[in-house]
């Protein structure tokens, strides 16, 4: 029912947007496409329960919606995870932990942002201690909008992400790597002295990799 080929009504909007974005095969070789296909078949999720959206992750993983049939399963630690799900608004205090977890994940890694709060602050648009646009701090690969998005729409979001991984398109982690100074400047603006120590990110710019 929720297979990625099927969409109806407004759900097709995203697919339309994405199909216009993607090139035919992005000039990838057979090996890259095979690797992409294998990667999209298996997504380990680090569900960061930052806000009320976390409540939608449980039905997603359990019997009713059963995300495991798409190869989506929870991971215990960031080292093992492929996808970071930010579920809802993000207080500045949690942002530090989210950045830390994101940087500890091993590439390729993706971020799915849940709900309106991650796009424009949502109902917390004038709050003093939440961030308004998640993409300024860590690179978001896929937004799933709504307040709250239902598990169905989450699955849609995951499927779209899988399709993008399968096509081997450039993802957020490459953006983060390329624009690390911009991201770090943004993070420093809200975190101030509370930034994680330099060793957690200086390897991005140090060319150590």
């Amino acid at each position, binding site marked *: 029912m929720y297979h990625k080929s099927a969409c109806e009504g407004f759900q097709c909007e995203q697919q339309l947007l994405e199909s216009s974005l993607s090139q035919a095969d992005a000039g990838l070789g057979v090996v890259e496409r095979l690797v992409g296909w294998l990667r999209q078949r298996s997504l380990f999720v680090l569900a960061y329960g930052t806000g009320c959206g976390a409540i939608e992750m449980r039905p997603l993983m359990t019997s009713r919606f059963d995300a495991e049939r798409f190869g989506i399963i929870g991971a215990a630690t*960031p080292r093992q995870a492929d996808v970071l799900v930010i579920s809802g608004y993000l207080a500045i205090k949690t942002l530090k932990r989210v950045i*830390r977890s994101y940087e*500890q994940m091993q590439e390729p890694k993706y971020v799915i942002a849940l709900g309106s709060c991650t796009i424009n602050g949502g109902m917390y648009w004038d709050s003093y201690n939440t961030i308004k646009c998640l993409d300024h701090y860590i690179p978001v690969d896929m937004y799933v909008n709504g307040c709250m998005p239902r598990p169905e729409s989450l699955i849609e979001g995951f499927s779209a992400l899988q399709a993008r991984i399968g096509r081997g398109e450039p993802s957020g982690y490459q953006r983060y790597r390329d624009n690390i100074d911009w991201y770090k400047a943004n993070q420093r603006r809200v975190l101030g002295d509370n930034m994680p*120590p330099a*060793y*957690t990110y200086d390897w991005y710019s140090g060319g*150590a990799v």
Partner: protein
Amino acid sequence: MTTNRPLLLKLLFLAVSLTPTLTLLTWDGAWVWPLFGEFELLFQLEPLAAFFLLLLALGAPLVALPMARGTPDVPTYALFVLLLLGMQVLLLAGDFIGLFIGWEIMTWSSYLLLIRSTRATLEGAQTYILFNLASAFLLLAGLLVFYSATGDFQIAALTEASTAQRWAVFVLLGLAFLVKVGVLPLHRWIPLGYDQAPDLFSAVLAGLISKMGVYGLLLLPTLFPDALAGLAGRWLNGPTAGYGLAWIGAITAIVATFKAISQQDIKRLLAYSSIAQLGYVLTALGVGSSLAVGGAILQTLVHTLVKLLLFITFAGIILQTGQRRFNDLGHLIDRMPVAFFAVLIGIIGLAGMPPLPGFAAKYLVFVGLIDARWLLLLAAMMLSSTAAFIYCYRLIYGPFLGHANSPEARDATEAPMSYLIPQIVLMGLLVLLGIFPGWAIEIIVDPVLTALNLAPIGAPSWGELATPYGGYDGVILMTVFGSAFVIVTALFWLARGQLRRAGSPYDLSFAGEVPTADMPLHYGAGMGRELRRIPLIGWILAHTTTGIQAGLTRQTLATAGLLGGLYRRDPQTWILLAVLVLASVPTLLLLNGGNS
């Protein structure tokens, strides 16, 4: 001239430490030294003693090398030389008098060496000497009973004695040697002594001196032929007397293993592990079959090598850092890589894992137990040898892995060369014995078995350990494991993707947090604490044997009080009593003699 004296002294000391090797290589035939009356001291090199002399020949120079470092400490050197002399006398002795003389020299010189440590306390020193004197007096009592039964001090089979005399000799001599080996509840001097002794001397205590107890226990089958079975019949496929001995060994091994897990001090942990390892030897000796005794001999050899290696290595670490507790060390792997490998090899040997000879020894003992159909003992041994993994892991995690927990551990350097050379030699020996278990059986174990009137185990090739229950090939095992390791590493490097080394030891997956240097991240001290929640282990750890010894002390004091009651303040009563006894005994004897 004066500048050369320390060097000369050291060279002399090192040369003397080679005397066991010299003895082993050159001693032939018997050397008789007439004593008073018709008694004479007999010195000869039996195959059994030759095996223990081999241990001595291996261990003495390896310990002497690091001991010779720094300014020469003449009393220590002299005592060490005396100790070597004592042990050689003990091993070469063909009769109980020589054995006893050697035993006493060994006891006293080791005691004097022990109290030279700055850490020695009155309690530790007293416990050491009291237990060892008790052992010596039990030996004396045993050999006097032996003499009264045979009229000779020669170490030979006790054939024409009565059952009571046989049991008396067995119990007295057995107890004497068990104290030396340190079975429960006679073990209290071991953790205290090994802990407080000078760090290098602990290696001698654990590696060599404790083996003299094993030597004594291996003499018992000589005294009581047919592997103790002559004493009290047989139980399943083994001797009944041995069954009791084996259970003592197994319980010792279990309790000492759990005690070892709960220790906070490296040397105390090693001391308890030593007790446990010799518990296995005791179990195997109890079985008494050729397989099990072969396993016991191999285990003795492995334990000597492993304990020398571990104690010398940790002596090096204590020398460099001054720290000896698990939670004061940590992350030495980068700074002391040789020591890390030495401890790694040591714990693999200690745990009896396959590539190293510890496994061969354990395999022989297990098969021996199955052959004797003593399966419950097998379960007990399995319990203690798997629980040993936990303390083995602590032994390497605490000092080498995790986080450096003290300033000394943060900037330690590798120990001096004189510590590293013995480590490398011992590591090499352990690996060689592991690859060629058949060679160890053929060259080292089988001559001893033949001397004990047991069937030799034999080996089809150097790499192969063969028993009636099947065997394994060390060379093939190492080849398979080594090539698998190389192939997996090569495949890993060939595959795409990059490796990145963490920028800081604190770059940890820590639930989103960033740990700092002042967080207690080192798990070395607490490890094993949660084991107390398991009822059996909690019970064992909550009890100590001090109660038994306190009770023994109370009984002794009560007996002394009883005897003291006979003692009157006025000496006249005593003298009168003495005169009465002296007068009546010859009279009675005369009357009896007259009647008969």
